[in-house]
Structure formats: structure tokens, C-alpha cells
């Protein structure tokens, strides 16, 4: 080393990362960061509460969800035996709500993951290649988005029959274009970064550049959007149930519960209001978490 004066020999300053432990420590740090944002903390608590209730439903639900308590039909309103009351067939509302949380909490996130996977690939390809590939993908997305979605759901589900997998499929297909649009926008910006050029200059494949160089840097807004979209999916699943094309009866489904009982609103409002409240609380939970994640994203 001919001129040793030249440089910074050590890095005394930017040192606080010494505790770079993978796995649990990182996890905990993330979680603590989430706790620092009030909306995120509240949202996450609501969602986690529902997840715990749904998982434990077989253990904590006081009745089987489809069991009719004919004796209770005389007093369907909340009572000691039925905390939230029963529906018009004498089924315990609390048990049905708890069991009803299970399909929602599986279908909504799975559909979002599907949409994110499909949408990210489409968006990356559209943004990275541009030209005709980009045009074809964007136009295709626009076409899907221009349909009134509820009618689209009705057509598809009426044709293929209503099942959990079909609902996931439909939600994936209709949400993917939205994600694709977001990812495309970010890709258009990120592909101009110098590190992408550097990757090209060392001979990386296009697929590698899209998935490893670009996608990870799009994840912030993407995660926020996925969280929001999970909430929207909860609403849509409710709406499908309400329209009678949700999960097949008799298993409890929040939307279906509203459909069965909203005619009796004037007499027994609790039968429809309880599942409505369940849907709302879960949606609010996801929205708050999205708000919190966005805040955290802005802060960094």
C-alpha cells in the first residue's frame, strides 16, 4: 500500500448493526417496530384475536355450529345459554360466528397471495419489458378491471359452482390486475436504477433482475396493498355469501348468515347485526394494519 493515508481504515461510526442476528431477533425487532405505530398495533391485535378465536373454535365454541336448539327459538335474543342469541333456526350465533371466521381467514389471505403472485409477475413483465409485452398485459388488465366485478363473480361462480377454491380463484383473477398495475408502476421506476444496470453488465438474466433486483424493492407498497386487499376480500366474501353464491350451506358463513336473517331485522336485529359486526371488525383490523405499515414504510 503505497499511500496509506488515503482512506477510512475502520468504520467507527455506522456501527449499530453489529447485532445482526437472523431469525428470531429480526422477527422480534420487526414486531416491536409494528408496535410503535398505534394503528398497526390495534389492527394487528384485532386480526390476531380473530385468528386465535378461529383456530380455537372447536374448543371454545359452546355449541356445534349447525345444531338447532329448538327450545331456544322462543328466546332468540342474547341470554345466559346463548351469549349472542340464536338465529331463526335456533343455532347459537356465537358458535356460528367463531366457526364462520375460519373460512374467511383462510380464503381472504390465500386469494391475496394468489393475486400478489400473479399480479407481480404480470406487473414485472409489463414494466420491465415494456413495448408490446407491456401493452398486451396492461390492456388485458384494463379489460378485467372494466367488468363490474360482482357480475363477473356471479357468472363465473354460477358456471363453475361455488366452492372455497373457486372463490379463491375468482378473487385471484380479479385482484391480480390491480396488483399488476401497482407493480408495473414501481418497476418502470426501479428498472432505471443503477444497480439494475450493474446487474445487466455482469450478465444476469431478465428473470433474475425482475425477481431478485426489482421485486424486493417494490415490497413496501406491495405489502401495504396486500393488507388492504385482504380486508376488501373479507367484504367480497361476505357479499358473495349474502348473494347466495358464497360457501355452500349449512356451514356458517358470515355473509350467508346475514342473508338468512336480514328479513327479520325489524324483529330480531341481532341475527344480522352480529355477523355484520364481525365482518366490519376484521376489515377495520386489516385497514388499520395497512395504515400502520404505510406509516412505517414512510418513516424509513
Amino acid at each position, binding site marked *: 500500500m*503505497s*499511500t496509506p*493515508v*488515503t*482512506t*477510512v*481504515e*475502520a*468504520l*467507527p*461510526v*455506522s456501527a449499530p*448493526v453489529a447485532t*445482526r442476528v437472523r431469525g428470531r431477533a429480526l422477527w422480534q425487532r420487526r414486531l416491536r417496530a409494528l408496535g410503535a405505530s398505534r394503528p398497526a398495533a390495534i389492527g394487528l391485535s384485532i386480526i390476531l384475536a380473530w385468528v386465535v378465536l378461529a383456530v380455537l373454535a372447536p374448543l371454545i365454541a359452546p355449541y356445534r355450529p349447525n345444531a338447532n336448539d329448538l327450545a331456544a327459538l322462543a328466546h332468540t335474543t342474547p341470554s345466559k345459554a346463548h351469549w349472542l342469541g340464536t338465529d331463526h333456526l335456533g343455532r347459537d350465533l356465537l358458535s356460528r360466528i367463531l366457526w364462520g371466521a375460519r373460512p374467511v381467514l383462510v380464503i381472504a389471505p390465500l386469494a391475496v397471495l394468489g393475486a400478489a403472485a400473479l399480479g407481480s409477475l404480470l406487473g414485472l413483465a409489463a414494466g420491465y419489458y415494456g413495448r408490446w409485452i407491456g401493452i398486451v398485459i396492461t390492456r388485458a388488465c384494463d379489460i378485467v378491471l372494466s367488468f363490474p366485478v360482482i357480475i363477473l363473480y356471479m357468472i363465473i361462480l354460477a358456471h363453475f359452482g361455488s366452492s372455497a377454491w373457486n372463490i379463491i380463484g375468482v378473487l385471484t383473477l380479479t385482484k391480480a390486475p390491480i396488483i399488476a398495475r401497482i407493480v408495473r408502476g414501481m418497476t418502470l421506476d426501479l428498472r432505471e*436504477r*443503477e*444497480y439494475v*444496470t*450493474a*446487474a*445487466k*453488465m*455482469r*450478465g*444476469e438474466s431478465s428473470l433474475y433482475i425482475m425477481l431478485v*433486483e426489482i421485486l*424486493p*424493492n417494490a415490497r413496501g407498497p406491495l405489502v401495504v396493498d396486500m393488507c388492504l386487499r385482504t380486508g376488501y376480500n373479507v367484504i367480497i366474501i361476505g357479499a358473495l355469501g349474502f348473494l347466495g353464491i358464497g360457501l355452500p350451506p349449512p356451514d356458517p358463513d358470515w355473509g350467508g348468515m346475514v342473508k338468512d336473517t336480514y328479513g327479520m331485522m325489524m324483529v330480531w336485529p341481532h341475527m344480522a347485526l352480529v355477523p355484520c359486526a364481525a365482518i366490519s371488525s376484521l376489515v377495520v383490523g386489516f385497514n388499520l394494519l395497512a395504515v400502520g405499515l404505510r406509516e412505517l414504510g414512510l*418513516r424509513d
Partner: protein
Amino acid sequence: MTDASVLDVEGLRVTYATRAGEVLVLPGLDFQLRAGEALGLVGESGCGKSTVALSIMRYLGRNGRIAGGRILFEGRDLVALDDAALRAIRGRRIAMVYQDPMASLNPVMTVGRQLMEVPMIHEGADAAAARARALAMLGEVKLADAEAVMERYPHQLSGGQQQRIVIAMALIAGPALLIMDEPTTGLDVTVEAAVLDLVRELRQRHRSAILFISHNLGSVVRVCDRVGVMYRGELVEDGSVRQIFGNPRHPYTRGLLDCLPTLGRDKRDSPLVPIAGQVEPAHVRRAGCGFAGRCAHVEAGRCTVRPIPASVVDGEPGHRVACLRAEELEHWTRRRGAAAAAHDAAPAAEPVITVHHLTKVYEPRRRRRRFGAPRPSVRALADVDLAASRRHTLAIVGESGCGKSTLAKVLSGIEVATQGGVTLDGVEVGALPIDARTAVLKRKLQMVFQSPDSTLNPSHTVGYAIGRALRLLQGRAPDDLAGAIAKLLEVVRLPPGIAARKPRHLSGGEKQRVAIARALAGDPDVIVADEPVSALDVSVQAAVVNLLTEIQAARGATLIFISHDLAVVRYLADHVAVMYLGTVAEAGPVERIFAPPYHPYTEALLSAVPVPDPEHDVARILLDGPVPSANEMPRGCPFATRCPRRVGAICDDTPPPVQRPAAGHRIACHIPTDELQRLQAPLVEPAPAGR
């Protein structure tokens, strides 16, 4: 003295609330500014220069707080004023000019309206009077055709014109204090020179006090009477321009001057001396001198005990320095380090990379608009010929839009040549996009980019970035990387532990070193560096420039260094090409470029460089008019429209002949070179003898 002062800052303490708690950024600042005086604040980024400006404007934002002290402006304490009182002062008695003029101007209003607003709102002037004042002010900032300019929107003006508008807007109310925060940083050197001269001239006429914040010592010399050197929120030294630059007493001031490339410095006889270490983050506060951690003269038990008071330098009234050892240090002379081993590259060394008749034309995406005229194509490079020899540094200089970055893109295969070509080690690559280049070719030519923030992927660790380059360029197996990564990091003088970090934990200089290490992974023959140090602080810049020079000498690589900074180019180049509007105006060995005969454009560029030396006084050659847009290239000499030495119609009609006044030196100009030689005075002190 105090009675005449416009601004009197006393013990100003400012803190920022961060996640790590309250951070003290200005621990207690004192300075005064008298009417008509211009004070320059200099220092590395993060030294609190802008915080001073924002505190005076009371624009600290939600997380900033003035924790103590007073800011007396015309006898009133700005710290104690409420919003209404502040509004009456801002814009009217205190005006501010920011770095980015486009961000200061409202894009949906004509500049005329924006100018007229100032007197209309602050003084209740009627529209006609305001218009007259605006027109007069536009004349003062030397904008030709003021009437027409009034009707323009900001985006219809060039960067230099926009900054003139902003200055006009600031001065139209006749403020007692004008704060300028890096007003010329984003501008080209010739435009910068013109704006600085304008500020200097307006100063004399308007009697406004100026607080001029800049990282560029040269521009401070040009505008200010006094200079304050800031380090970590403290004023470590202040005094007149002559005192500070002639007899700097504080080690930090000396460090800043020692690491600054100037037009007379050359890597062979006067290496740059970077300041050791880096600015410590603001939340680390130690007892004693803030600079102690980086100071070569620090004395344990003396400098690091209690705060250092500022004392007046003997025999120099007005020159204060906050250093206990200031009187003990010997008189400063520009440091000339031991001569580095001059790598004597034979001038006839065979070129590694040649560019021959290279033309690059950008065709518009769609040739024809639905309505209106067809879109023109843009000629970014026109018939460029260059060659770089093994072990040499070829610098390419020019202002923005001259085609230097396009040239880098064609060399690296990000763009392909429209005509002509590039030969890399005997292989024609001009028409080969990067995807079509073989692994060997990719290995031979690598790039270092401009922006430290975008050069590394924020999602990947340093080790991953370098490892990936090693795998692809050297074909190493994934389990055989750790040692090679550490070795490359050592080459760029970074500790191996940095491999596990992500870019956000690194400073700008560190990121740029990692980028250099990544480019070196394939042991390239040619490194194309596109403005690699432009975004760095001078002290960091010096270290990176030294590193590049060293690596190049050690590895025998050819460096193609693209820059707008003539001082850096003078320092590290062996050969220089000066580009203008996609053509090479002048090219040759570095000593020839920086001595007459100059191409008239080179001459203008050199005269415009702000030199941090108050004794240096060359007549500046100011260029008139805008650079012609690249789609309406002049038929004759590209520089004819702005050339101060234009001889006549021949310049407009006939492309200039290439003259060769010496071996390897060529100038594209109609004026014979011996005539140029006769007309031109040397603009650069010749490098010291003893070569």
C-alpha cells in the same frame, strides 16, 4: 459593532427529535452579519449549515426545535416571534434562495405573476406597479427580453434562468437579509459562474446582507467577504476570505483545503490528502473539540476535556478560531505530498479501447404525431473519435447535454451505436448491446455509476452484491466467495465485516467504494466511471479519487472518467476529451488541454471554474445564450452560437477543421492554433516544475 449588524445569532441551540431521542445539531452558535456583508458558511454535509438557514427562517419543521439562544434580526428576536409576525418578515425582510429552483417556483403560474405577487402581497402594490418592478428586476438579473420571460412558465426556462428568477423574486422586496442555500449546486459550471457573478454584482447594488451556504469553497470565495467554517454544528473558524484561505488556522479548515482538487494539482506531484475518518453522527457528542476524532494534531487530555472557546488569531482582527493548538501549528502551505510513483505510460501505448466515428441518434418512439410536425430525432453523439491506452485515464468533460453519459452508455452496451463503432481489445462492440456481449467482453469492461444511493440494491447485502459479480464475471462457485469478497473489500479499503451490511447502513463514500469493488470483481481492462465522485463531499471525494488512481496503477486498468469537474479531471487524467453537443471540441494529453492554445469552449469552461483562492483572479469568459437543443444542431461549428471568439459566417456554415498543434492534441476550430495561442492567456498556474 452590534448596532450595525443585521443579524446577530447568539448561542443558538437547535435539536431534532429522532427515534433515537433528541439530537443536538447546533450546540451553541454565535455569529454576526452586518448590512451589506456576505458571509459564506462551508463544511461537509451534515455539519448543520442548512439547519442554520432554516432556524433563521424558523422553518425547522415538526421535529426541529430551537432549544436556546437568540436570533436577533434588525433588533428583534426571531425565536420569540409568533407566526403572524414571522410572516411579515419572511419574504419581505428575509428572503431565501434554495438549491433547486424548479422546486421553488410554482409550475402552473407564469414567472411574471409569481414575481408580481411579492410586492402585491407584501406591500399592497397594485398590478401595474408590481409589473413594472418585476420587469426592472428581471433586467437586473440579466434576463434578456424580460417582457417575454414574464409570460413563461418555469418549465420553459433553463436551470440557470430559473435560478435567476428565484433570485429576482428574493430581491424584489428589497430584503435586509438574503439566505442562499447551495444556490448553484445543480448548475453547469459556465452557468454557475454567471450566477455567482450576478450575485456579486447585485450585492453591491442592493446592500442586502447575504448568508451564503455552500459546500464549494470556490464559489464562496467568489461571492463572500467573510467565511465561517462549520463542523458538527459549531463554527470552528471564521474570518475574512483572505484570512481563511491565506492563513487557515483550524485543522479542519486545512483539511478541507488539502483534499480539494484544484486546476493546478496533478496526481503525480501533489496527491490529495483526505481528512481521516468521517463526520460522526450528531447523537454522538463527546467532551471537548468536536473534530478531535479526526484531527491529526489532537492532544489527549487537552483537546478532549472541555468545550473549545473561539479565540482571535494574533494580528488578525476578525479571524476567530476554535482550536487550542491553533497558535502552535506551523503556518499552512498548500500541502504537497511526496511524489507518487509517476506511472510513465508511453504515449504510443496501444489503445485498449477506441471509439471511431461514433454517432448515436435517438429516434422518437413514434415518428409522427397525430397532429403537427413530425418529431425530430436527437443526435446525442456526432462522429466521435477517441482512444484510451492501457493504464491510462481518459477523462471526458463537458456540461450537461454534451453527450458524455451517452458515450458511457454506448461503451458499456446499454445503448448501441447508430453509426461508427467501439473497439474493445480488438473486438468491435459498438453494435453489441450488453445482452449480446460474451462473458469475456462483459468482464473486460465494467462501470462505476454516479449516485451512491442507487448504485447498490438496498435489499441486498454488500457481500451479496460483490459475490454475485464474482460468480458471474469470474465463474466462482457460491461456496468459494467469502475469501474473494474480503480481498476485494480490502482493495477498496473497507473492513471485511461490512460484507454483512445493507447499503442503508453505509455512508455515500462507503457505498461508492463497494461499487468500485463490484466493478473490479472481474478484473476488468477498462473501467468506465460516470461521475463517480460528483455526489460526494470533498473529503470523501478525495479518498475515492485516490483509491481509483491507486487501483488503476496497481491493476493496470484503463479508466474512462466522465466528469463535469475540471479540477478533478486535471488531477487524475492522463488524457482529456472536451465534449460539446455530442462532438469532441478538443482532446489531448492533460497538460496540453490545460495550457494554451485552448479551444474557445475549453477556455470558457476553465475560466468559469470557481477557484478557492482569493488571489486567483482571471477574467471570466461568460457564454451567452442557451446550448442549442440537440435536435437542431448548427450546420457549422456546434459551438458557433455561443462562441466568444467567433470569427464570422464560416463558423456557422462550415464544420471546423481538426487542427493538431502537438502530438496527440487536436482542436476543432476555424481559428489557427498559433493564433489561439497568441490570443489566450494561461488560465491555470502551471504545475510545479520537477516533473
